């Protein structure tokens, strides 16, 4: 085997291009995912079984099936229906970029909603009772007490969820997108140096997760400063997904 360092150097700019797309996918889907996850989590802790039913089914489906199936369902599946092809959504659904973003957002929304639910249920009862005793209305309690507290609790675990999503984003390469993995595969098809290029891609993924972890530690330090910050993923949340443990 002749190990070729120069091929990494030569194709580094292309790999960085792919890295940029990967970051874009993670950032956009992460934001949409959180926006979807908060209402889902709030519905999930509702006392009414009718309200709970929808988020339950949604989370069950998205956590119980592979992300690859979800991507293919959206990207290839949508074209099966003439009605979709005729509608205004087709302009979006025919582009792999948007299909990947839709799939990632819906997927991470399910996982994050489950985490936020765990965090809401981990808030000490007394804090909610205190809010009630002060005469706060339900919406005000949610806005001032429940959500801010839940975010503080969920943060360490959410940082790890974001890394899982970063890893999941490599599936974008299966629907022709040139993200970091997709770019690496294209380069390898041309140069046939799989070990060198995959190593380079792996190192870039590791660096990104390293930066994510650092950023989240800083954010945690700021948000949880009132309780003498110490980094810890609550056991309520590692029970939901042991991969979130450090």
């Amino acid at each position: 085997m002749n190990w070729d360092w120069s091929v990494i150097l030569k194709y580094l700019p292309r790999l960085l291009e792919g890295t940029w797309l990967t970051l874009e996918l993670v950032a956009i889907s992460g934001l949409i995912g959180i926006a979807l996850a908060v209402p889902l989590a709030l519905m999930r802790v509702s006392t009414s079984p009718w309200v709970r039913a929808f988020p339950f089914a949604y989370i069950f489906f998205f956590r119980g099936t592979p992300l690859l199936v979800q991507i293919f369902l959206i990207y290839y599946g949508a074209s099966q229906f003439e009605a979709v092809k005729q509608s205004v959504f087709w302009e979006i659904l025919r582009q792999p970029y948007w299909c990947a973003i839709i799939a990632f957002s819906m997927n991470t929304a399910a996982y994050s909603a489950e985490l936020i639910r765990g965090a809401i249920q981990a808030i000490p009862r007394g804090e909610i009772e205190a809010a009630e005793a002060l005469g706060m209305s339900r919406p005000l309690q949610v806005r001032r007490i429940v959500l801010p507290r839940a975010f503080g609790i969920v943060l360490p675990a959410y940082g790890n969820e974001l890394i899982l999503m970063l890893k999941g984003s490599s599936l974008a390469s299966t629907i022709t997108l040139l993200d970091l993995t997709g770019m690496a595969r294209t380069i390898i098809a041309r140069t046939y140096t799989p070990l060198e290029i995959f190593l380079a891609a792996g190192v870039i993924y590791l660096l990104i997760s390293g930066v994510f972890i650092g950023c989240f530690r800083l954010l945690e330090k700021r948000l949880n400063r009132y309780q003498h910050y110490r980094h810890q993923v609550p056991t309520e949340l590692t029970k939901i997904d042991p991969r979130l443990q450090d």
Partner: protein
Amino acid sequence: MDLQGFGHLLLSGAWVTVKLALTSLAFGLLFGLIGAAAKLSKFRFARILGTLYTTLVRGIPELLLVLSIYFGGSMLLMWLASFFGYTDYIEISAFAAGVAALSIAFGAYATEVFRAALIELPKGQWESAYALGMTGPQTFFRIILPQVWRLALPGLGNLFQVLLKDTALVSVVGLDELMRQAYVASGSTKEPFTFYMAAAFIYLGLTAIATASTMLMERASNPVSRGSRA
């Protein structure tokens, strides 16, 4: 749902998926135990290796792992074989590459689950076994492992579900498992939605079975719950 005679194809794919998942589980548990032992070892070098294993693997996409082992693995093996004078082409099967990648990934997360369980176990368990004159391996297999197993089961059950879903990635290197068969069927019928939905429901069924079995095993491993309802 009309599967147009492709139902048996999906089922044969599901069977490959199950075989892939169970084989990877066996190796993955082994890697997890070795990893946890390394991380808790008194030797600094073993601890460094263990930490390196979990940090590297948990930060790299599983898909990248599958691809590198499938495409890079044969190159690596051929290079190693060349030292022994073997110069023919060596190809790694998609199944073997899948098992390698999935069990390495599973093992990295299982390391943390086992490690947490081992730490949780009181030190007195080791000490009393020592006092009874048991050797190290005896203590580990007769005293420690059965108890660690009980503590680690819920976490491992969750990780097995993740593993079950990750088997879909091996379709990318051409293994005829469930996802790949759904792809083939949707290609010839031009009904991708139907077949990916069918695949999704089969995966849901498999994860449901996995959850139920984990719950049964949890009950069986916990002597308290086997007795009268307290």
